[in-house]
């Protein structure tokens, strides 16, 4: 599954570590989500979407 997390994070000038800390996950988890290696759980996807003020389907895209 592809996503826009990296673009949204960089638009806010956040590091992966800072975003991870804000969402309660590790920097490695953010990195894995951004490169598409790890698909977040629905609760985490919702937290990410809320953090960026968007919908889940607005950030995560089924290939």
């Amino acid at each position, binding site marked *: 599954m592809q996503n826009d997390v990296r673009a949204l994070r960089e638009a806010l000038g956040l590091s992966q570590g800072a975003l991870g800390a804000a969402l*309660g*996950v*590790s*920097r*490695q*988890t953010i990195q*894995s989500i951004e490169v598409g*290696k*790890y698909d*977040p*759980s629905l609760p*985490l996807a919702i937290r990410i979407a809320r953090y960026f003020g968007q919908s889940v389907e607005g950030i995560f895209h089924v290939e």
Partner: protein
Amino acid sequence: MSSEHSTLRTYGGFVAGIAVVVALFFLLRTANDSVALGALVGGLLVMALLAVAVWRSRHGTATAALARSAAGVADERDADVMRRTLAVGGSTSMMWLPGALVAIVLGADPMIAVTIALYGQLATLVVAYIVTERRS
């Protein structure tokens, strides 16, 4: 879970782990000094490595899912990595242990067969962890 609860659980785990290692040493010493010493050194080495992993996790420098899991601060990806690693370890144990049993029945030295099964199982877990960590 509160951080105090997590810290208490981690310290409790360390104390229990060291107690098990020491008890195992005294138990094995009644049968074989060399094996007992190996268990003691190996067990304490593992506990020391876990202590380093926990310390790094608590100070935010740990980058491995295993370290964060050992420290009780695993997130959902860490838990997923550990779950998949242990699933591989569990399923392959059904290959290592019967393999050792067959080898013993066929005349292999039981100590050697069990030792190979043990280290094979450990190697399987290590490889499974590394592969899973890199792929997720």
